[in-house]
């Protein structure tokens, strides 16, 4: 053990800012990060055990105890539950003989819950030792556990055959389907890697690149919609010896999986976009921050970066441009939704807890290692390449005046064709449902849990920054779904699980709201409970980051758009109900003392 930790520490130059990588490697090498490892790392990096422990304990995929020779992480997302997670989970428990969040006594199998893993179009899905197992059924689970018990290797566990496109690439070999349903400029397979770097960049000044971006009116694709050209320009103008480009590939919003597909099928486009951005702002180093759930793409992407170096699309004097040096390293996350927030992502890339920073200063002024940093979404970088290739005017011919270009959507839920659709901005919710083959729709979650739950009266609303803004997650629900129980409760629990805990508001309020929602679902709600939820939720607006600020959105938007569902659950005539249950409250004492008569 000592030896392998030493080589891991060597691999990252004993650099405290690479603590994430060190912990990731120790976790994958040893199956856990125990006290001994923590002590060794702390000593080597010259930090305290507490310093190591605070990062370690923040991330879902870091464990202090062994997680089993086969660690199974089963997704808990709304989509997984809709597609039969319950039966799958029960089968795992029965077959393995243990409840979730524990390990079999022989240390062979560990069962764990995990938040959305980016497979919403092929749920229920689990990650077993980093490999994705989508479309699980109780039958398949029995097979898996039987094969694990029989000592089969990870490769041998796969009976599905590998997925379409690059999923079958020898460097990926994933049982994942792309489900590309509609292509546009970003997903266009007719793409010549490096064309923009070689043919366009040498003829343009960085400012011209920025001007073209500004003229295209392209805005950030992560969901917030900040004008990309302006972001690059501010960063370019901020004086500093060092600047960074970061690609945010930490898509964690339940229902989102489009970056998975882009990383699989158009990674060269993405990397080219990072090079373009680096040229524009004057960065020499880039970081591609990818969520841990997509670690199965690691070798594939690393080789592509290597290849780009060989072809002079990265490295020194790129495309012959004197002094234009740029390199990209991949940083994996370790299971944390909030790291999709750009400043939390930066903290994480620096080896720390993924706690968002207070803004200002924004990353463009003070980002990675306190240097000016541009953080953009995967899709934004991809689009940027197409803007330069075909010009801003061409780009603006797509979409609406306010929202130009296209958006890659992740559509899932109750529809015949879940998958990835690249559409022009300006589509209505109705169009989306029609496209995906959903004809029994009572609600659509637009923009994931942090977005809105909208009903039929809003289905003619338009997807664009000015109306229904979205990072691309759309989940469709039909009449068999209990929106409060299946959707709102699940999303609220998701926010509780993923809060970083640093702001009082986001740490506590969602838990209070969930308890209130449970009270209503348990038929103990009064009308006042509904209005109190709305009143109380307002405090979340004082949270530091987007996660905290939107953590009550599932509750708020469902009350706004589906008020009748709440009204049905509360007892109209009751003005006040504390929720106190005497029978329940006395159960423990009656059991302990062996008394038989129940109290009235």
């Amino acid at each position, binding site marked *: 053990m000592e030896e392998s930790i030493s080589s891991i520490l060597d691999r990252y130059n004993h650099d405290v800012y690479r603590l994430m990588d060190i912990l990731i490697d120790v976790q994958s090498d040893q199956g856990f990060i125990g006290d001994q490892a923590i002590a060794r790392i702390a000593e080597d990096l010259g930090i*305290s055990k507490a310093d190591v422990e605070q990062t370690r304990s923040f991330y879902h995929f870091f464990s202090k105890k062994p997680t089993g020779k086969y660690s199974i992480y089963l997704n808990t997302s709304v989509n997984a539950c809709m597609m039969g997670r319950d039966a799958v989970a029960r089968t795992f428990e029965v077959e393995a003989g243990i409840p979730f969040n524990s390990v079999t006594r022989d240390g062979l199998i560990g069962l764990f819950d995990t938040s959305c893993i980016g497979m919403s179009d092929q749920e229920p899905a689990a990650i077993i030792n980093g490999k994705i197992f989508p479309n699980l059924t109780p039958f398949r689970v029995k097979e898996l556990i039987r094969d694990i018990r029989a000592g089969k290797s990870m490769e041998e566990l796969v009976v599905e055959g590998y997925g379409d496109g690059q999923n079958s690439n020898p460097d990926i070999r994933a049982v994942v389907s792309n489900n590309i349903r509609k292509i546009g400029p970003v997903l266009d397979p007719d793409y010549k890697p490096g064309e923009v770097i070689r043919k366009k960049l040498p003829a343009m000044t960085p400012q011209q690149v920025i001007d073209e971006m500004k003229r295209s009116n392209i805005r950030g694709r992560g969901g917030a919609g900040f004008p990309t050209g302006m972001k690059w320009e501010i960063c370019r103008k901020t004086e500093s010896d060092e600047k960074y480009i970061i690609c945010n590939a930490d898509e964690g919003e339940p229902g989102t999986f489009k970056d998975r597909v882009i990383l699989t099928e158009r990674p060269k486009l993405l990397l080219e976009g990072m090079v373009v951005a680096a040229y524009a702002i004057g960065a020499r180093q880039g970081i591609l921050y990818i969520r841990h759930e997509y670690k199965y793409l690691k070798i594939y992407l690393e080789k592509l970066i290597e290849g780009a170096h060989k072809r002079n699309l990265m490295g020194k004097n790129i495309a012959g441009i004197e002094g234009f040096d740029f390199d990209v390293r991949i940083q994996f996350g370790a299971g944390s939704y909030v790291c999709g927030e750009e400043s939390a992502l930066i903290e994480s890339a620096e080896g720390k807890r993924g706690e968002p920073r207070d803004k200002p200063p924004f990353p463009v002024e003070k980002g990675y290692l306190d240097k000016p940093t541009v953080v953009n979404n995967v899709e934004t970088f991809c689009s940027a390449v197409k803007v330069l290739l075909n010009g801003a005017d061409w780009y603006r011919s797509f979409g609406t005046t306010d929202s130009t270009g296209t958006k890659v959507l992740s559509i899932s839920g109750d529809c015949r064709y879940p998958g990835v659709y690249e559409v022009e901005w300006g589509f209505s919710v109705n169009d989306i449902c029609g496209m995906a083959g959903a004809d029994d729709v009572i609600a659509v979650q637009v923009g994931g849990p942090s977005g809105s739950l909208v009903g039929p009266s809003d289905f003619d609303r338009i997807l664009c920054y000015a109306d229904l803004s979205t990072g691309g997650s759309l989940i469709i629900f039909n009449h068999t779904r209990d929106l409060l129980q299946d959707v709102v409760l699940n999303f609220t629990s998701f926010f509780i*699980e993923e809060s970083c*805990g640093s702001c*009082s508001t986001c*740490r506590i309020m969602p838990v209070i709201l969930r308890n209130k929602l449970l009270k209503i679902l348990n038929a103990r709600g009064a009308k006042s409970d509904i209005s109190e939820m709305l009143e*109380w939720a307002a405090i979340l607006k004082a949270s530091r980051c987007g996660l905290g600020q939107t953590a009550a959105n599932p509750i708020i938007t469902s009350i706004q758009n589906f008020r009748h569902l709440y009204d049905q659950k509360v007892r109209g005539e009751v003005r006040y109900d504390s929720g106190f249950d005497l029978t329940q409250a006395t159960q423990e004492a009656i059991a302990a003392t062996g008394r038989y008569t129940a109290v009235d």
Partner: protein
Amino acid sequence: MADLNNFTIDGLKCLAREGTSIIDAARQNDQFIPTLCNLEGVPPKGACRVCTVRVNGKLMTACTAKISQGMEIENQTEELNEMRKSIVEMLFVEGNHFCPSCEKSGECELQALAYRFEMTVPRYPYFYPKRNIDASHPRIVKDHNRCILCKRCVRAIKDEKGRSIFAFLDRGFETRIYLDPDLAGQLTEERARKAVEVCPVGAIMPRGEGFKTPIGRRKYDRHPIGSDM
């Protein structure tokens, strides 16, 4: 002076050096902005959100936001004070705050803010979390029941090599303070005293000492917190 900025707090004309945090700038202008996590001389964190003000209409924490020329700051408004009160109430239900049996009572900033906001009862249900008291260290007792996770100890106390002695463990509602198993046991007298001092509540207490000041003479017995401004 060139680097002095004009700004207003609740319409009142104020002056402070550019780049001063709003909370410091307010203090310099004799305006009280309540806080539980901010501490002079320690990098701000914006953890408690109690100092939330409106800056040109936008909600921001006064400890992390900096003054700039022409800023219009809302501070003592009904909306903001109601927000602050509800945060204090959340902190009361999140932990186990038994004021009558707490050595810090009368000198506790959380309690003092509750007095200031006339909190008779938190509007939220109590969680009564199961938490421990860690009395394994020679100089301090860490009572997790009373901890409000303001991170003051995390930020203010480091050892001579800059290493953390206090740190956050886990995340979300499970977050708690972790004491470094080696360094916490070796706390110097000076650092231990400082740790006790910086804690706004009774979560870090000195060993072998308590209820030193008689009731009536404690810090917040007679005058509300912030009434010195």
